[in-house]
């Protein structure tokens, strides 16, 4: 049962009025349904768009998780849907448990569980979905909210406990997951997002961009009120902005081990959108948080429950040739663009390593760190269109991915972790270089 933590006055009070009185951001029918839900202790947000293949199982696990770990608490599932046409909202709503349906196969539950769906648009806009969940959470006075991705097929009911209990019982504000991953899975996170967040913001958050996470009412209200929701920027990358807002606001952050990470439909062609949502947002937020991170050195661990990282090592077939080719041709073709972004030394070094053979290819940690930092600085100065800068990073990332794969081809889990740690230390060590570039001649 949720502990009755002494209520803390929220400092964001004036802002609440502005948000709730917004010109009908939430549809009327949805507000009416929220009236019927009333107040909840635990809220699960589940944004969807044509996820009928996977959402049924996800919702079943969520329901089980609530019934097992929060059976006495008031709970609700909120489903912001982007206009699905395959019956996804109906699947989510069917997870409600109430006394209206008199099915005999009903399992026993203490309380009513509301599962309500609302349509927020005709195409996916993750920012709007998150905003809907935050607004609903504020109206329902949810003490802890978890955001779950509709295609997390590997989700288990324990995930809700892992993510929500630290919020409910230990007064944390943000709980991010840690996963069991294949050692070559999520390279953008292990080679860029994690080290950069760690070096720049000083916190060792393994998964700063997560498909599922949980947060407290304090953090939710703060983010809802303080963010420029109409900005183009908020449409992309709201998840990582959320994490960074928590860091910037001094909120208590923890991570909790959940299990295996599932992947659906994420392919190489998705690299550029992935970069936009993560690196683009990260570089953007670094702009406004400069005064916060410029003074930090080193990094601190954050409270972790369960393993911080786990790697599976089963052999994976990876098209290394393709990675290499894309890196090589990228460096070649984008030279004119790189000239505006990278320092001459870095560019020269990159051109040198394109000459290497595919099997002994090396993209050293130091070079990668410099690459990333130079990109960050170029993004800050907007030497060319910022979106183009992000796109230009893609082939270089592929090169780094290949190098990492080769480096860790036969490595054990400990070995991989060691290499990642060394990379992080390099990022931390070269932070002065970043600062120099960032504040250098405009």
């Amino acid at each position, binding site marked *: 049962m949720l502990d009755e933590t002494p209520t803390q006055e929220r400092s964001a009070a004036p802002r609440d009025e502005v948000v709730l009185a917004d010109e009908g951001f939430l549809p009327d029918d949805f507000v009416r349904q929220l009236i019927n839900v*009333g107040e909840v202790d635990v809220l699960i947000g589940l944004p969807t768009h044509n996820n009928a293949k996977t959402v049924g199982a996800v919702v079943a696990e969520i329901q089980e998780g609530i019934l097992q770990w929060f059976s*006495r608490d008031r709970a609700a599932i909120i489903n912001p849907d982007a206009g699905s046409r395959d019956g996804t909202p109906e699947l989510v709503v069917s997870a409600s448990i109430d006394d209206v349906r008199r099915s005999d196969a009903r399992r026993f539950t203490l309380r009513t569980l509301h599962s309500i769906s609302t349509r927020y648009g005709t195409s996916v806009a993750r920012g709007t979905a998150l905003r809907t969940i935050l607004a609903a959470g504020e109206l329902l006075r949810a003490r802890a909210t978890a955001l779950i991705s509709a295609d997390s097929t590997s989700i288990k009911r324990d995930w809700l406990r892992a993510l929500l209990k630290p919020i409910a019982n230990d007064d944390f504000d943000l709980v991010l997951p840690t996963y069991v991953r294949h050692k070559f899975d999520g390279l953008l996170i292990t080679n860029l997002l994690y080290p950069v967040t760690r070096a720049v913001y000083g916190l060792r958050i393994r998964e700063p961009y997560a498909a599922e996470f949980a947060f407290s009412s304090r953090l939710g209200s703060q983010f809802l009120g303080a963010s420029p929701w109409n900005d183009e920027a908020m449409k992309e990358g709201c998840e990582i902005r959320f994490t960074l807002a928590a860091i910037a606001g001094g909120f208590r952050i923890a991570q909790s081990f959940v299990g295996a990470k599932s992947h659906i439909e994420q392919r190489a062609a998705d690299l550029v959108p992935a970069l936009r949502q993560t690196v683009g947002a990260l570089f953007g937020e670094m702009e406004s948080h400069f005064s916060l991170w410029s003074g930090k050195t080193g990094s601190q661990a954050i409270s972790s429950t369960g393993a911080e990282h786990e790697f599976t090592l089963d052999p994976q077939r990876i098209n290394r040739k393709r990675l290499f080719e894309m890196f090589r041709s990228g460096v070649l073709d984008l030279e004119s663009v790189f000239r505006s972004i990278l320092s001459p030394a870095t560019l020269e070094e990159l051109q040198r390593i394109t000459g290497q053979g595919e099997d002994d290819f090396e993209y050293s940690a130091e070079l990668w760190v410099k690459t990333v930092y130079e990109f960050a600085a170029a993004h800050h100065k907007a030497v060319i269109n910022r979106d183009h800068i992000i796109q230009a990073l893609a082939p270089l990332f592929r090169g780094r991915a290949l190098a990492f794969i080769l480096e860790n081809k036969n490595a054990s889990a400990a070995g991989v972790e060691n290499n990642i740690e060394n990379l992080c230390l390099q990022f931390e060590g070269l932070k002065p270089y970043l600062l120099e570039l960032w504040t250098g001649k405009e």
Partner: protein
Amino acid sequence: MALKQDPLWYKDAVIYQVHVRTFYDSNGDGIGDFLGLEQRLDYLQELGINALWLMPFFPSPLRDAGYDIADYQSVNPSYGNLDDFRKFLKSAHERGIRVIIEMVLNHTSDQHPWFQQSRSSQDNPYRDWYVWSDTDTRYKGTRIIFLDTEMSNWAWDPISKAYFWHRFFSHQPDLNYDNPAVREEMWDVMKFWLEAGVDGFRLDAVPYLTEREGTNCENLPETHAILKEFRRRLDEQFPGRMLLAEANQWPADLRPYFADGDEFHMAFHFPLMPRMFMGVKLEDRKPITEIMQQTPEIPVTCQWCLFLRNHDELTLEMVTDIERDYMYDVYANNRTMRLNLGIRRRLAPLLDNDRRCIELMNGILMSLPGTPIIYYGDEIGMGDNVNLGDRDGVRTPMQWSGGWNGGFSSADPESLCAPMILNPIYGYPAINVISQRRTPHSLFSWTRGILAVRKSSRAFGHGSIEFLYPANHRILAYIRRCENETILVVNNLSKTAQAVELDLRRFKGNILIEMSGKNIFPRVGELPYLLTLGSYQFFWFRLRKV
């Protein structure tokens, strides 16, 4: 005012459960008696009840509050004698109040002469009146009811050198209903009281009358046959009298006790009661509506008996483990309050003395289909004493005034049959009849008011029920219908204010008339009917199409 001659009088009854022992002491010996009870009939008439259920008053060693009977055709001398009883009965009938007494069929006290005879030797004519066995292995698998005190349903009798069967305390041996002599004798006992004028019996512990190997010894067909026979004779010789079953079973298992209207007239709806308490704590109507969905239809001459509390613990036998744990945690945090899979507390302390919540619970009690029972003292909000053993904490003397012994008795406080409640919240200086009768807004006055409103419509006692399922799960709403009367009941189970939209399209064009103030509310149209309710508030609306 004479008794209303109506074969279905029990459908319109409001029953007041009272124990003569702790109601009013007229002779100053510290124990309540029948003459005292008679003197207090005016109060009961003023309250508005029209039936009394008396707890056992037969001679008894009182090791189980009188349910261990030593003589079936007499009155415990502490309470008076048969003449006192008859005098009281006559006065009650004059005031239009019917009297229902206990009839403990299943067992007697081990002090009863029958048992004394039965155990004396194997050849005694009364031997077969009880269930004897040389071993204690018969009827294995039968559950033990008093878990906190008994280890087995068999007890060894050193005099008889055999085991005897007892479903309750070991000093309450079960009668053997396979013996026709037993059945005849028990009918004679009932006849004795019926001839005295008693209007009905509450038959205690009826599921356990007979035992058969290989069963759980509850609700057996043989038991039903015996009960049907009693009913047949009752209808034949004493029409208009009533049989009320005390059978703590799931609704589906209770249904057979109504049979085709030829067994019991009424039965307690045990499973509903804890769910009402659960509903207000969870602030969710689901437990209540679900048990009502599982409640079977009963013959039209039969009636459920509803209650919030009684002389026993608030039993949690008929709930799941999850529910029981929840109820324990929210209502009986202190372990001493827990007993025998139940909670031994009175209504007001259970609800934290929240007046609005007490009113709501009473409102639901009065408006659900069935005959409501008010446990003595709950109409003024009496408290309990968990330090008294067993279930005595809810059986303290009635609090009449703020004076000597709360007006219950003129005897020395130390010699009272049970100590008065004294704490500043529930003690008799704070909670007593005199104060509440003088205050128009007291709980007593309110209860009197709502009983009057309930009486103003037949729909409550005789009507059908149809639940509305508004999306707001904290609202319990239903329609009671009878002939040409339609009543809408809306209850807010939550401590916080609520808004609810009801789908009343079927009743389009009706004006809602709130039944206690008689003010009109907006007419029902096409759109969902919006109501707002305050903390624990409820409405009874009469629907009227002009």
